């Protein structure tokens, strides 16, 4: 399920660390990007690769907000709902996103293209409200700007990096 090329990268990655388990989260990021989400098979692969138990890997993966144990869309939109973003319209923005996509936060569009997730402070308060699409920041977002971004995203004209 994991390409030889990626596996070779992991072989290099573990050498950075005095204890190879340290490579677990970086590896989970990459496996998630390659597989789409951390499926039971993906968890088992990582566990075998690092000589850990699948339950152990699962306990780590389930701790972190950016690691997904259920299938998610091809594109991931994080919307900050913390204090400063809320002061400057985050909830209105979130409602707009939900209306436009016809799904609620935490859900994925039926075509599997876009997932929405509420996130805590993204360290973008000076340019609030902020969202991230596929790891890229978009700041001082207005409903209008959001519509433009969604349009570009649907047309494959938005650059992002999933890892």
């Amino acid at each position, binding site marked *: 399920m994991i390409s030889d090329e990626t596996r070779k990268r992991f072989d290099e990655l573990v050498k950075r660390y005095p204890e190879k*388990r340290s490579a677990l989260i970086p590896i989970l990021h990459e496996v998630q990007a390659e597989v789409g989400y951390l499926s039971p098979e993906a968890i088992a692969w990582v566990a075998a690769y690092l000589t850990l138990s699948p339950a152990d890997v699962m306990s780590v993966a389930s701790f*972190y907000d950016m690691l997904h144990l259920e299938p998610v869309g091809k594109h991931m939109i994080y919307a900050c*709902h*913390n204090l400063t973003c809320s*002061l400057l319209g985050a909830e209105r923005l979130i409602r707009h996103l939900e209306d436009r996509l016809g799904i609620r936060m935490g859900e994925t569009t039926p075509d599997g293209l876009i997932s929405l997730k509420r996130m*805590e402070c993204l360290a973008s*308060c000076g340019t609030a409200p902020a969202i991230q699409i596929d*790891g890229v920041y978009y700041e001082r977002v207005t409903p209008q700007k959001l519509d433009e971004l969604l349009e570009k995203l649907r047309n494959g004209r938005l650059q992002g990096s999933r890892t």
Partner: protein
Amino acid sequence: MAYEKILTRYRDLPNYTGTIDEYITQGGYQALPKALREFQPADLIEIVKRSGLRGRGGAGFPCGVKWGFTPKDSPKPKYLVCNCDESEPGTFKDRMLIEEEPHQLIEGLIISSYAIGCRLAFIYCRGEFVSGAQVLERALREAYGRGYLGTNILGSGFDLDVHVHRGAGAYICGEETGLLESLEGKRGQPRMKPPFPAISGLYRSPTVVNNVETLSNIPHIVLRGAEWYAGIGPPKSAGPRLFSVSGHVERPGNYELPMSITLRELIFDHAGGIPNGRRLKAVIPGGSSAPVLTEQHLDVPMDFESLAAAGSMGGSGGVIVMDDTVCMVRVGEIVSRFYHHESCGQCTQCREGTAWLHKVLRRIEHGQGRKEDLDLLLDMCDNMKGKTICVLSDAAAMPIESYLKHFREEFEIHIRERACPFEGKGAF
């Protein structure tokens, strides 16, 4: 008198992109050869102690003292870990420093590693800093290319490798032992202390964890001296500080200033005051964990001691400004939701306390509050403080106590009227 910017001097240069050549042109990488040639590691620890530099991540612990806690003759390797897990709501300065001036941090990291005797260092970035981590990776490659990293750095015999490590979204990994657990490939659950990381940290070896801004100060201290640095700002809160100002101000952003600046000067002179002719209602001076302050505190200087004396804290330097349309119960609901979501769940007081704080605040905000709820909240807060492995629990309780202290009447109105008086017309 105009303040001379140090950490963000580069921001006044047109088209500056933070490459190694630009950094060197601006005087970068002069402190590193000076540190390696003129000073023994122990001298550097003394210099940083004398400078009065305190940690910029939240706790404000003296940096040189922290370094001094690591054993001099350790049979185990020593590690330096840069805490770039910037997650304290209201704080966005470390992200700016790594994206815009990565070499200042890297130079500080190399000098600090030399000072504590570390040969392998990590920069732990929060998972969401995808582009910031890429900028750092590129900057590290540049530094290796010039011989500032690797073996026998600048012919000194000192070797150092540095790696960027990204987390995956968890506020608690900003707590230094939670960070170390995460870096070891585990859940980010904080460790019992003692032992402190200086004795038993990463891989059970002596470890120093320093914030991005803290380390970015080091090259300047080495170049210009401890006395120069100690002369900036108040004696016990020396050096420049980056204040992240956000919320209801005309010009939100990062402001580098000495900590003698008052809240009033920061909000009104630098950040341009409150927009739309509104009045200031409340300000959180040090990230969302800090107790709230009000108009009566505007002349408090932003140093660690003065903010503590005013009943709050300097924390991470995240200043969140709120105008008079803001409902403080709603603020409590949002802030408590955050700590509830981020509690790692190890300690009962925090796991249950953050959940119940949020639940009770939510019901007050939504018109379901009970008369006894305010005393219940204060009782819960009291039970959450000083009783857990780390201070997340305290950080969740302190702001709520402060909202009740300064705005109790607003909570009572919500309960009495069975509704939020700001509903439909407030900032949210």
